[in-house]
């Protein structure tokens, strides 16, 4: 036997050692519980993680939303029925948050209802445009792909601090404006401009992710279909609306759902950038939940839990509608 062959056999034997050690154990287990139950055994680690970190918190959340006081331990929390929900929904006029007993909840909800559609529309529009540009034959394509993806890798706090540095009264943007002869603007002090920059910064931070997904979708469309369209007298616009968009629809749908969920969850960037202000102009749902649950004394876990459940229900309805639409399109 040659030396190399002997080494190969020896390493093979060592490599298969764990397998050989575990085999009798597995065989015994299979005999004990039956082959049909074996998949559950392999799923167990992941199932435990899901139960412990996803399902259990949901039930704890439901429990908290029906109990009161600022105590953390469930045994010390008195049952108060739907009081938390009644408090949240107690409103003189639903269109006027100041008539509600928890007016910030309604302001945050209103802000989210404007923020999410605006941000998602801007996000997908800009990401699609960027993806189309990057899909073309431009110089330095790889470089630009990297540039647009880069912000995605940054920590949200870094993103927020960077933009705060740009947007503050004595920031970079005002420095440039002053040099060009314009009056400096206190961007984050006015409600409308703060809201605009909230949308802008979050789009800037996450756009690269959606651009990459859309770019992959664009590249999956065969080139010869476009050539056939060219032979078929299709203008660029018609090729875009009649070929690109329909063929990109499944990818767009995924991007849309991800973007909406991400947008509803927006918290960290704005918490650092605007703190929800000025006033409550950029206060979104998740920040509201965080603040009444953990920041404001006394901590009102029950109310926060109720608010998060209401948000969860809204998201659930939205997801169901999405599923409906996506099934409809894949069938049609």
């Amino acid at each position: 036997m040659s030396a190399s062959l002997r080494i190969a056999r020896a390493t093979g034997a060592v490599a298969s050692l764990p397998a050989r050690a575990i085999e009798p154990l597995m065989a015994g287990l299979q005999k004990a519980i039956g082959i049909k139950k074996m998949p559950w055994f392999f799923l167990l680690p992941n199932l435990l993680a899901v139960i412990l970190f996803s399902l259990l918190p949901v039930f704890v959340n439901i429990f908290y939303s029906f109990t009161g006081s600022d105590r953390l331990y469930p045994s010390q929390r008195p049952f108060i029925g739907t009081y938390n929900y009644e408090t949240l929904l107690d409103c003189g006029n639903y269109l006027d948050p100041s008539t509600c007993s928890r007016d910030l909840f309604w302001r945050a909800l209103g802000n989210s209802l404007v923020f999410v559609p605006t941000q998602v529309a801007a996000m997908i529009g800009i990401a699609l445009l960027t993806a189309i540009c990057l899909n073309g034959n431009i110089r330095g394509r790889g470089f630009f792909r990297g540039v647009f993806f880069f912000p995605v890798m940054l920590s949200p706090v870094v993103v927020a601090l960077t933009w705060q540095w740009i947007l503050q009264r004595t920031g970079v943007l005002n420095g440039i404006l002053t040099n060009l002869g314009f009056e400096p603007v206190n961007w984050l002090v006015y409600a409308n401009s703060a809201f605009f920059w909230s949308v802008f910064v979050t789009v800037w931070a996450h756009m690269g992710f959606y651009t990459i997904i859309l770019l992959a979708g664009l590249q999956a469309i065969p080139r010869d279909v476009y050539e056939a369209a060219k032979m078929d007298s299709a203008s660029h616009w018609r090729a875009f609306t009649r070929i690109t968009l329909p063929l990109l629809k499944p990818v767009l749908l995924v991007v849309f759902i991800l973007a909406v969920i991400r947008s509803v969850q927006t918290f960290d960037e704005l918490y650092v950038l605007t703190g929800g202000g000025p006033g409550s102009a950029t206060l979104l749902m998740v920040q509201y939940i965080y603040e009444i649950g953990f920041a404001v004394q006394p901590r009102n876990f029950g109310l926060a839990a109720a608010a998060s459940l209401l948000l969860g229900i809204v998201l659930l309805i939205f997801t169901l509608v999405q599923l409906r639409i996506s099934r409809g399109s894949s069938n049609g």
Partner: protein
Amino acid sequence: MANLVLENITKSFGLVEVIPSINLEITDGEFVVFVGPSGCGKSTLLRLIAGLEDASSGDIRIDGESVINVPAADRGVAMVFQSYALYPHMTVRENLSFGLENIRMPKGEIEQRVSKAAALLQIEQLLERRPKQLSGGQRQRVAIGRAITRDPKIFLFDEPLSNLDAELRVLMRVEITSLHQRLGNTMIYVTHDQIEAMTMADKIVVLRGGRIEQVGAPLELYNKPLNTFVAGFIGSPRMNFVQTKVVENSEAGITLSGEGLPNLTLPVQGLPLPAGAAATLGIRPEHLVPSADGWPLKVTLAEQHGASSYLHCMTPNGTPILVHEPGQSRLRSGDILHVSPAAGEWHLFDEEGLRVEPSGP
């Protein structure tokens, strides 16, 4: 109905010259096949005619008018792609009508053209289906239908049958040929399959390395190939080549020797090959006939096709020679077979591989 002229067409991708220079004239109503091995530039040439690629220089004229600066859609040509390139999200009907909607043709006329094309190709019952729900052959028909609805002057086919199985390929070959007979349009067809070229073409253009090797009717190319490349490419199975040296070139004919074979005298006068010159003798498998004083060849494999047999043989020097025998051969591997070329059925090529013909009358 149109004739097409390519004048000094060249095409380079960056520094790579794909087509050095091509001149070609295709007359109205002809079925022309571009044939050649992979990378010979045949598809590029077709895409240049279609307007999907821009020529580096030269001119393309359709019916006398230069179309070199005319966009693909306005050249009056329609293309059938190798992959069919059907719009996957549209029904067959929408696939056929998309091009007509783009030029804002009235609805009634679109419907009329679509149903006419569908009837011609017998795909009426498929009109509401999506490409995904069609078989390869049906997709092929839809792709051809899409070209027909545009009523082009010239049809361009880019290896349209290469994705079909062998049986369907034969069927579609016949269908495309009969379609050409019914429509009468000029058609240009690209393939690497010389059988498709032989069976379908009025005129074959053999390409290699972006150059035209020979243009002619199928049998012209078969009977009088201009060089060893065309001789080897056209005809199936391919022609046998034997490297020889001229021993004597006299009134009695030309005597060749080579490959450890006995000298062979061909009764032809006036060939411009002096004694001592190298020459390649080309003989098709079907033109090697048994003769007692012919070349002794050793059979290495006898392929029985039923109606005929192909004997894979070897010269004493080891050059493989294929011999066609009508009917079912009794020869087995290891047997010795004596053959010589049938009268007049041989081709001689000089050192450069160019055909040598007797000079003078």
